[in-house]
């Protein structure tokens, strides 16, 4: 049976949803082993054990994480060699994609990013041009290295938990590398990550400076707040909230677009959302051409009313 190696970066206290999805996808393809670049706690290890993982790989030198990308890529390549894995799965963060990129060169292997579905013969499905094309592609050389977008597969635990055993692999760090000299953790908002959120409430130019009503609605729905480039450029919300071409790609169940006109590149960025709701004052906005439910109205009355109604229904 094919061995599938899942690379997990930055282990937290427990497994994140996207990590559970990766392990579930791996379990559907073969025997799962894990590569952990950083130290993980017992709860996290028990978590991966509940997906049938018997073995996980760790670098013999903790310094791999002090070096930007190159160290983890070297570790991943060694873990692939040590495990004999034929498939490698990673998350879809920028850093994971780069680790995939560099280990691909080390292993003479093709890399496919932004995968949203994978069938048994390893044909990967992804979107191109910000969701306006669906593309099927395959790795033709070497080990199949794939980075998978969150919310692409259902997380299903594999069965009886096991206590996975650690296997150390020797890693040769690059001669000249970029070193991380300082790291400050950012304050946590309490809202889900944009890339993982099931619901996104996103605002554009029409929000006119106040994201308060959008934040309230997002909180009532357990969602994340996003923004168009116009809104982040105006300084109304931090840049990390930006969705689209130069920001984050998202594909939530529900995308509520508020005060966004729907110019072509904005529309492209939300096309893979399952359901699109649009609120805009301008009845001629192109956004209404693609919305499942459109409201021509003032966001400062429509949004608070919806938020209150959700709370009233006790949902």
């Amino acid at each position, binding site marked *: 049976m094919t061995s599938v190696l899942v690379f997990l970066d930055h282990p937290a206290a427990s497994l994140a949803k996207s990590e559970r999805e990766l392990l579930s996808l791996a379990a559907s393809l073969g025997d799962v082993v894990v590569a952990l670049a950083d130290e993980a706690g017992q709860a996290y290890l028990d978590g991966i054990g509940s997906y049938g993982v018997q073995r996980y790989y760790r670098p013999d030198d903790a310094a791999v994480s002090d070096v*930007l*990308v*190159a160290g983890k*890529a070297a570790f991943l390549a060694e873990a692939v060699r040590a495990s004999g894995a034929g498939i490698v799965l990673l998350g879809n963060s*920028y*850093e994971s*994609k*780069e680790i995939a*990129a*560099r280990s*691909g*060169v*080390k292993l003479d*292997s*093709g*890399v496919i990013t*932004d995968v949203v579905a994978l069938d048994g013969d390893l044909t990967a499905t992804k979107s*191109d*041009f910000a969701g306006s*094309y*669906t*593309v*099927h592609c*395959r*790795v*033709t050389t*070497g080990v199949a290295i794939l980075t998978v977008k969150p919310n692409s597969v259902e997380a299903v635990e594999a069965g009886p938990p096991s206590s996975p055993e650690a296997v150390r692999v020797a890693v040769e760090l690059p001669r*000249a590398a*970029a*070193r991380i*000299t*300082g*790291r*400050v953790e*950012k304050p946590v908002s309490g809202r889900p*990550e944009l890339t993982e959120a099931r*619901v996104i409430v996103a605002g554009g130019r029409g929000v006119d400076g106040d994201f308060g009503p959008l934040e309230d609605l997002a909180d009532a729905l357990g969602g994340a707040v996003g923004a168009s480039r116009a809104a982040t450029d105006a300084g109304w919300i931090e840049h990390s909230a930006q969705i689209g071409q*130069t920001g984050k790609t998202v594909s939530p*169940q529900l995308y509520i677009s508020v005060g966004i006109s729907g110019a072509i590149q904005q529309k492209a960025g939300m*096309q*893979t959302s399952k359901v*699109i*709701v649009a609120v805009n004052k301008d*009845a001629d906005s192109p956004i*209404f051409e*693609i*919305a*499942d*439910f*459109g*409201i*021509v109205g003032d966001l400062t*009355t429509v*949004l608070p*009313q*919806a*938020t209150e*109604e959700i709370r009233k*229904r006790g*949902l």
Partner: protein
Amino acid sequence: MDEATASGLRIAVLVKHVPDAQFDRHISGDDLTTVRSESILSELDEYALEAALQLVEAHGGAAAGHRVTAITMGPAAAVNAVKKSLQIGADDGVHLTDDALTGSDASATSRALAALLQHAGPFDLVLTGMASTDGETSLVPAQLAERLDLPQVTFAASLELTPGDGGWTLAARRDSDTYAETIEAPLPALVSVTDQINDPRYPNFKGIMAAKKKQIQVLSLQDIGLQADEVGFAGSWTTVEAAAPRPPRSQGIVITDEGDAGIRLVDFLAGQKLL
């Protein structure tokens, strides 16, 4: 790439001619490649070019022997990305063009660019955008760093160079969702920059006139020592089997708020089982 010196910085900026995201973009033909009409200099590459120009200007400019070279690969029209870069302020350009390059995936592209940089260099610094706005894989900068054995700093939101006895050192800041990091690396190095690093300048009349006198070196695969089967479809490690435009979303219900639109929105969400 290992002849870095503390004077005379040579910076390579990778620029790409990509379909304009303001218009509908298409994949077509039997070979499933991107249609490149309506193409422009990739917006994200403008930040890399601006970063290069600012670094050079901060350290004495061309008078101090520094040089910014715009580099691209692709069909004849790809040279437009280099021409635009020269108008904005790059000193010279290099264009790798060869029919065999068609269909290159990230692995083949990075192989070609690595050979091109080695041929046209040495460079102290290779600057790129955070991703191309067409392929959007963001694999190429990391693969280039791997192939050239360069320290890699990606998604830099700030960038400074300091000369020293042992050569130049760069310092950068980058922000992920969970961390803000400071990074240090010796030159030569490869850096990709985000759209937060600066405000790119526009070409002015003087720049447009000056660009006409600047040199663009045109190279073929043979010039950089690569065989046709090392790039393009033959040299790629992945293949596209099918590409279909996403079916257009059909218009749903549009209502005008008559005082109860918020409630009707909640009814709609409940009906879709989204609450």
